């Protein structure tokens, strides 16, 4: 019984892992990059490279909001909505934006944004169109070139498979504590197994947490039935119920001047004296039905939805607000969500999340390589179609994604700033680079091909900071001297990966010459034996 249970778990672990490992690798890779979504946005937008973080950020917020209202009243008094986005710890600039009236058939209004340096209150140079970190964020949970809902379903199923693989992996790893700190070098598949086990065990709590909470983030798509049976309007009704919305002034007719924002801010600071306001939204400004929504940062609380207050724009009366004390179910959902995103994590915790993400990539990558190596050994070098497919997908995914990422960042620097659809072209560069690697993997998947890809990746990683230095005013040295840590670390990470890929190229070269020597020795020995 025990043996058959162990065997079934091994079978389960192998197949749930193998069937989805490449898609899970993409999800983990993009998710890991998404932890630095704001930093990637900053790097991809040269206009904000020299904006210094405000020292008295929270204290300056009141004046920034008042000036924003004056600006928007002057430039877009009749716009359907306004948005003032204040600088945050990881977002150094200020945005005053207003919506253009919707065109027929348009789902969402297009915003006209003016970005300002909060230290000088001067407008920043025009922003270039870029997908930035949002590309990796969307790729992480809804993939790309797929309908959003279909993409999310694929990610959901992959996450379920991942969860099954983790649990069955813990069950079959008999020596989980005995082998905890063990890595046997140069032992063929044994070394791959050690790498797989080690990367799984060292971040096991992270892997479990991130996979489980990942499923929870999409729970209303997976399990909508309680909401569907309770609310007449289905999921929409449910979301309306849990999001504070304006039911008071919605039907008011005619125009009415906006109340001075100072009055509304007084209310906010009375309720939350040390409020760190992140955004102010005004709907239907200068109308009787207008509302002013003030969103504040939840700071260190495990809460995904920002606490907010909704005021009538005409009277200044508080019309709705988020709950101060969350119900237990809402608190559970919000805490699991914010654990997954790590949105309010400190820089230290953010790096530890990234470490967990990298461990996840190593775990998945070593798992699929190990499977292919074992089957090749078992078949004594002969490769079936299935094995060739797995080997090809391994090469395309593991070596293709880093190259595609480099292509994305290089395209961001090389594409003309005025090019129409520039953001989408960065994404095209990403997928084209990946496609090239996939085609190469289709032709050949041997050690030489891995070596070539490692060398190409080393060069590509080196190109990212090099091209940045040639196309912008800064470079890794100036970033270090000017204490522009985000930009410095970004370039340094690419240089580090370039070195790692070079080491891999060299390792693969010595490994192939060693195996050639062994093969030659074996043939010579056989010849000698025959001769004797």
């Amino acid at each position, binding site marked *: 019984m025990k043996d058959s249970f162990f065997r079934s778990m091994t079978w389960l672990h192998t197949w749930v892992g193998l069937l989805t490992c490449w898609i899970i690798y993409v999800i983990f890779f993009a998710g890991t990059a998404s932890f630095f979504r704001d930093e990637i946005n900053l790097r991809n937008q040269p206009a904000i490279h020299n904006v210094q973080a405000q020292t008295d950020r929270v204290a300056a917020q009141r004046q920034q909001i008042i000036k924003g209202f004056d600006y928007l009243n002057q430039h877009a008094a009749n716009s359907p909505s306004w948005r003032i986005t204040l600088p945050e710890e990881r977002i150094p600039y200020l945005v005053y934006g207003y919506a253009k009236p919707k065109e027929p058939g348009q789902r969402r209004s297009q915003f006209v944004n003016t970005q300002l340096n909060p230290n000088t209150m001067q407008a920043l140079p025009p922003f270039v169109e870029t997908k930035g970190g949002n590309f990796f964020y969307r790729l992480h949970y809804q993939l790309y070139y797929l309908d959003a809902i279909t993409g999310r379903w694929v990610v959901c199923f992959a996450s379920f498979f991942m969860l099954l693989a983790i649990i069955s992996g813990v069950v079959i790893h008999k020596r989980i504590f005995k082998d*905890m*700190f063990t890595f046997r070098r140069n032992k063929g598949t044994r070394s791959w197994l050690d790498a797989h086990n*080690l990367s799984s*065990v*060292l971040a096991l709590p992270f892997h479990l947490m991130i996979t489980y909470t990942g499923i929870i983030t999409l729970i209303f798509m997976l399990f909508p039935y309680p909401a569907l049976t309770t609310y007449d309007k289905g999921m929409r009704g449910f979301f309306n119920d849990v999001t504070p919305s304006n039911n008071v002034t919605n039907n008011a007719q005619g125009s009415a001047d906006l109340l001075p924002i100072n009055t509304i801010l007084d209310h906010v600071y009375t309720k939350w004296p040390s409020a760190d306001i992140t955004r102010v939204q005004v709907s239907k400004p200068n109308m009787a039905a207008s509302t002013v929504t003030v969103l504040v940062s939840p700071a260190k609380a495990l809460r995904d939805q920002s606490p907010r207050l909704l005021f009538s724009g005409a009277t200044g009366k508080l019309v709705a607000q988020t709950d101060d004390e969350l119900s237990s179910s809402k608190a559970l959902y919000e805490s699991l969500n914010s654990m997954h995103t*790590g949105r309010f994590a400190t820089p230290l915790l953010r790096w530890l999340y990234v470490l967990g993400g990298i461990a996840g990539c190593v775990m998945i990558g070593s798992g699929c390589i190990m499977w292919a190596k074992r089957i090749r050994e078992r078949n004594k070098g002969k490769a079936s179609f299935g094995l060739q497919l797995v080997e090809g997908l391994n090469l395309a995914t593991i070596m293709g994604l880093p190259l595609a990422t480099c292509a994305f960042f290089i395209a961001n620097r090389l594409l003309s700033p005025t090019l129409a659809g520039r953001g989408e072209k960065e994404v095209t560069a990403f997928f084209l680079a990946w496609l090239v690697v996939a085609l190469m993997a289709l032709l050949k998947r041997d050690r030489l091909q891995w070596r070539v890809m490692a060398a190409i990746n080393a060069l590509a990683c080196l190109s990212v900071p090099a091209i940045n230095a040639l196309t912008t005013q800064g470079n890794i040295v100036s970033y270090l001297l000017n204490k522009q840590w985000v930009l410095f670390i970004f370039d340094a990470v690419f240089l580090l990966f370039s070195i790692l890929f070079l080491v891999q190229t060299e390792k693969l070269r010595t490994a192939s010459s060693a195996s050639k020597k062994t093969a030659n020795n074996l043939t010579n020995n056989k010849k000698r034996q025959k001769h004797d």
Partner: protein
Amino acid sequence: MIDLLSFSLCLFAFNGFALAKPAHFKTVFTTRPSKLQSNLLLIVSWISILLSLLFCVVTQQGYGALLFCGFMGLSVLIITIFYNFIEKLIKPFSFLNMLLIGSSGLLLIVNSL
């Protein structure tokens, strides 16, 4: 400083867990540990890791448990590198680790006075 103390306690705990294993103990001290030594190492390591968890949760509130998980991952990675690639440096590393615990703890006490 409290984060440094929590992390060094976590690192110390995993170093202890590794040393409690006969094979790793032999790598460092060229002899196998006695039953008493193994048990002592395990007890000290458990106390150290629980202290690390306590400091993380008390100071970081909601994200404390996550920070602790991150510290555990990083500690296991560092210990594995030392025990598999740079065995000779384990003794100075352990000494440095203890020094770090002592100095960060002392600084915290001084700051709170």
